[in-house]
C-alpha cells in the first residue's frame, strides 16, 4: 500500500495517516457506487468508475435527437419517460401511490428505515387528520420531473413554464453537444460514443465551450477532469474504503452520538436535501431507503471523519447530493473534498470564517463594480444598542468618505444581505437557482475556479437591479440629522425588501442563458475581468482586515459594557487627527490598535491595462462629484 502523500489542500495529515495505518475492515454494506435497482445501462452494476451513476446518457441522446419530442399533450411523459432506464426507476414507485395499503407499507418502511434520529419527519403518512392543509406528496407523474429527477414545478416556476422553456433550451443543448463532439474529434480525443474521460487542453475556446454548457451526460466526467479529481484520487487510493470501514466501526460503538455529534445532524438532513428529487425521496424505494440517501449518508459521514476541522456543515448535503447525481460515490466524495478545500477554503469550517471572508470579498466587488447596487446594500450601522442610531455612514456624498475612518468596517460588520448571499456560496447555488442554471455555474466553477462564483453572484445581483428599482426601495439619501429617525425606519424597510428580492430573484432564473448571454459573456461588464488572482488577493485582504477589526471591535465592545451604555461612534470625520476622540469610551484601547485600524486603506482593484476598471472608477467618482454638486 502506498502511503498517502498529504496534499497541501488538506489540513488532516494525521487523519490520512491514521486511516492508512488501520487495517481494512470487512464492510457491512454495499460500498461501491449507488446501485439503483433496475437502472440498467447506467450503473453497470458495481463498476466503481462508471461516471454517470444516475444521469442517463441514452435518455438524453434520444431526447436531444428529437427535441420537439417534448411538445404536445403527453409531452410530460415523453420528456424523460420514454426511456427504458428512466422508466424503470419511475415505474418502481409510480402510479397509485396513494392507496391505503401502500401507505401502511410505507409507514412501516419509514419507521424501519429511519431508526433513531429521523423522528422529525417519519410519520408522514399519519397525517390524514390535517390532510386538507398538507401539500399532496409529489405525484409520481413522470412528466412532472426534469431529466435529473427534480420536480419541474417550484414555488416560482410552473410546470407549464418549465416545459415551454425546456422545448427551446433542449434544442440549445443539442446544438452545443454537436459542437462539443466536433471539438473533441478535432482534438483527437476518442470516446466511443460513451462519455469522454479526457478533454482538450485549456484554451479560450474551451473556456467558452464550458461557459456555454457542458453536455449534461458528460458533466460528471468533465467536472472530474477539470477539477483534477484523478490527481487527488491517485494520491489517496483506497482511502475512501477505509473511511467507510471506520464508519462501520463507529456504527457499533457505544455513545457514538456523543463522540460524533455530526452524525445526528447529517441524519436529519438526509431527507431535507432534495425532497423534490425522485432519487432522494423517502418513498422511492419500497425495500428500504433509497440508494441515493444511503450514498449521501456515507459521503457525508466519511467526509466528517476525513476532515474534522469541517466535520459536517449544513449545505454540504446539497453539494454532495448534486455530485451524486453525476458521479459515483467515491468520486463524489473527493469532489466534495476539492470543493471545500480548493474552491471554498474555510467556508464550511466550524467558525464559518471563510463565509465571512468571501462575503466581504463580494461586498468589495459590489462596491467597486456595481455602485448602484451598493447604494442599496451599504450598511447604515446602528450602535450596539438597537434603538440608538448613530451612524457610520458610507454615503458617497459624505465628507468623511475619503478619510477612511471606518472605510472597511463593512468587512467586519457585514451588511445583513450577506446572510442571503452566504448561502449562494456555501451551497454553490444548489437550491438557489433552478437546476439547469446551477449546473452551468458548476461547469464554470470547475473550469475557472472560485472566481466564477463571484462573477455569477455579481451577475445575479446586476440582474436583480431592475427588481430593486421597481420597489421604492432606495430612499433618497438623507443627510440631515432630523431625518435620522425616518432613515432608521426606511433602512429597516429597505433591508427587508432587499433581502426579499435577493432571496427570491435567483429562484426564477430558469434560463441559464439569461445570466450567461446577458451578463457573463458581455465584455463591457467590468466584473468579468475579475480573475482568480484578484479574488485570492481580495480574500487575503479581507481576512486581514477582519482580523484587525475583530481585535479592535472586541476592545470597543468590552469598553461599552463597562460603561454600561453604548458608546457612539462619532464618525462625522471632523475631528481631524484626533482619532481617540472618535470613541466615546473611557476604557483604553491601545493607540496602535486604533492606528492600525484607522490607517487601513481600502482595497485597490487591479486596474487593467485596457483601462476598463480605471474608467469605471473614474465614472463612479464623476458620478459622486456630480451628485454632490446637485445637492449644493
Amino acid at each position: 500500500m502506498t502511503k498517502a502523500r498529504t496534499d497541501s489542500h488538506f489540513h488532516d495529515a494525521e487523519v490520512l495517516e491514521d486511516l492508512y495505518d488501520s487495517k481494512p475492515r470487512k464492510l457491512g454494506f454495499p460500498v461501491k457506487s449507488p446501485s439503483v435497482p433496475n437502472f440498467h445501462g447506467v450503473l453497470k452494476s458495481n463498476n466503481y468508475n462508471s461516471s454517470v451513476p444516475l444521469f442517463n446518457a441514452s435518455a438524453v441522446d434520444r431526447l436531444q435527437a428529437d427535441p420537439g419530442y417534448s411538445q404536445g399533450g403527453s409531452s410530460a411523459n415523453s420528456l424523460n419517460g420514454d426511456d427504458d432506464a428512466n422508466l424503470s426507476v419511475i415505474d418502481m414507485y409510480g402510479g397509485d401511490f396513494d392507496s391505503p395499503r401502500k401507505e401502511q407499507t410505507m409507514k412501516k418502511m419509514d419507521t424501519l428505515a429511519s431508526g433513531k434520529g429521523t423522528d422529525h419527519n417519519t410519520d408522514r403518512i399519519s397525517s390524514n387528520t390535517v390532510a386538507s392543509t398538507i401539500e399532496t406528496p409529489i405525484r409520481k407523474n413522470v412528466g412532472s420531473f426534469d431529466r435529473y429527477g427534480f420536480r419541474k414545478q417550484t414555488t416560482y416556476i410552473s410546470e407549464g413554464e418549465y416545459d415551454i422553456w425546456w422545448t427551446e433550451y433542449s434544442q440549445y443543448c443539442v446544438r452545443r453537444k454537436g459542437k462539443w463532439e466536433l471539438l473533441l474529434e478535432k482534438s483527437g480525443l476518442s470516446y466511443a460514443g460513451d462519455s469522454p474521460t479526457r478533454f482538450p487542453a485549456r484554451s479560450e475556446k474551451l473556456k467558452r465551450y464550458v461557459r456555454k454548457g457542458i453536455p449534461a451526460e458528460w458533466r460528471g466526467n468533465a467536472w472530474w477532469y477539470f477539477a483534477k479529481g484523478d490527481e487527488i484520487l491517485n494520491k489517496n487510493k483506497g482511502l475512501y474504503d477505509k473511511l467507510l470501514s471506520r464508519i462501520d466501526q463507529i456504527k457499533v460503538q457505544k455513545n457514538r452520538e456523543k463522540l460524533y455529534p455530526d452524525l445526528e445532524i447529517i441524519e436529519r438532513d438526509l431527507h431535507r436535501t432534495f425532497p423534490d428529487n425522485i432519487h432522494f425521496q423517502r418513498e422511492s424505494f419500497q425495500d428500504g431507503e433509497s440508494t441515493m440517501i444511503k450514498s449521501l449518508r456515507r459521503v457525508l459521514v466519511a467526509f466528517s471523519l476525513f476532515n474534522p476541522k469541517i466535520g459536517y456543515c449544513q449545505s454540504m448535503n446539497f453539494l454532495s447530493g448534486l455530485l451524486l447525481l453525476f458521479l459515483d460515490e467515491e468520486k463524489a466524495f473527493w469532489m466534495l473534498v476539492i470543493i471545500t478545500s480548493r474552491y471554498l477554503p474555510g467556508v464550511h469550517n466550524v467558525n464559518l470564517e471563510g463565509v465571512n471572508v468571501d462575503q466581504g470579498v463580494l461586498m468589495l466587488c459590489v462596491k467597486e463594480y456595481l455602485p448602484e447596487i451598493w447604494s442599496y446594500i451599504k450598511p447604515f450601522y446602528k450602535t450596539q444598542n438597537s434603538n440608538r442610531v448613530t451612524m457610520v455612514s458610507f454615503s458617497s456624498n459624505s465628507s468623511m468618505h475619503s478619510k477612511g475612518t471606518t472605510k472597511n468596517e463593512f468587512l467586519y460588520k457585514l451588511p445583513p444581505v450577506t446572510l442571503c448571499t452566504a448561502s449562494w456560496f456555501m451551497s454553490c447555488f444548489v437550491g438557489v437557482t433552478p437546476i439547469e442554471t446551477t449546473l452551468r455555474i458548476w461547469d464554470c466553477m470547475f473550469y475557472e475556479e472560485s472566481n466564477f462564483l463571484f462573477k455569477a453572484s455579481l451577475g445575479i445581483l446586476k440582474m436583480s437591479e431592475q427588481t430593486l428599482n421597481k420597489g421604492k426601495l432606495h430612499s433618497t439619501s438623507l443627510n440631515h440629522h432630523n431625518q435620522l429617525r425616518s432613515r432608521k425606519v426606511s433602512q429597516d424597510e429597505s433591508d427587508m425588501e432587499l433581502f426579499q428580492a435577493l432571496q427570491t430573484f435567483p429562484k426564477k432564473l430558469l434560463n441559464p442563458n439569461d445570466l450567461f448571454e446577458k451578463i457573463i459573456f458581455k465584455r463591457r461588464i467590468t466584473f468579468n475581468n475579475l480573475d482568480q488572482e484578484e479574488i485570492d488577493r481580495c480574500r487575503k485582504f479581507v481576512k486581514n482586515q477582519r482580523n484587525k477589526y475583530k481585535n479592535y471591535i472586541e476592545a470597543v465592545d468590552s469598553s461599552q459594557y463597562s460603561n454600561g451604555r453604548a458608546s457612539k461612534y462619532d464618525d462625522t470625520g471632523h475631528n481631524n487627527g484626533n482619532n481617540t476622540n472618535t470613541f466615546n469610551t473611557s476604557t483604553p484601547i491601545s493607540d496602535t490598535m486604533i492606528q492600525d485600524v484607522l490607517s487601513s486603506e481600502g482595497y485597490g482593484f487591479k486596474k487593467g491595462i485596457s483601462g476598463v476598471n480605471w474608467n469605471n472608477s473614474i465614472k463612479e467618482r464623476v458620478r459622486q462629484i456630480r451628485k454632490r454638486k446637485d445637492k449644493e
Partner: protein
Amino acid sequence: MSSKKKTILKVIILGDSGVGKTSLMHRYVNDKYSQQYKATIGADFLTKEINVDGDRTATMQVWDTAGQERFQSLGVAFYRGADCCVLVYDVTNTKSFENIKSWRDEFLVHANVSSPESFPFVILGNKIDIEETKKVISVKSAQDLAKSLGNIPLFLTSAKSSINVDPAFEEIARSALQQNQNDADAFEEDFNDAINIQLDGEADSCAC
C-alpha cells in the same frame, strides 16, 4: 406612539436543527405544511401583515434561521433590532430542549438588546402531533424551564397538524409590538442626544 409610519415587527426563530422552525413559519404565514422543506442555510424570512389594536396594521417579519450551531456566527447581523425571539424545541428531542437556554443566551449576546431582562421571548415545544410514546419532554419540565428563564410564555404546537400555532404567534406579535413601542420611545429620548453629538462635531470642524 403617534407615528403613522408602518410598524415593522422583527421576529427571530431560533432552535436546534430539525425542530421545525421553517415549518412553523410557513404554517403561520401561509397556513401550509409540507414534508418537503429543505434544510435552511443562512436565513430566510417571510412577512405577514397583522392587525394590531383593531385598526392599525403592522408588518411582521419572521426570520427563519439555520439550526446548526456554527451558523450562529453568521446571524449576528440580523439579530439586531429584533422585537421578539422565538425559541423552538422538539418535544421528541431532549437535546433540542436542553439547548433552549443557550439559544436564548446566544441571542442576548448577539442582539445587544437594551434591557435583556425584559426582552420578550416565547418558547414553542413543537411536534406535539407525534404519538405520546415518542415524546420525551414533559409539559411540567417545559413549564419549569419557561418559568426559570423569567416566565417566558410557553406554547406546545404542531406545525404539521396546525395546533396552537396561531395563538402562539398572536402572543409573539403582541409582545413584539410592545417591545417595538418601548424601543421607539427610547429612541425619541436618545434621538436628541444624537443630534447634539453631531452638532458638536460640526462645530469642531468649523473651528479648524
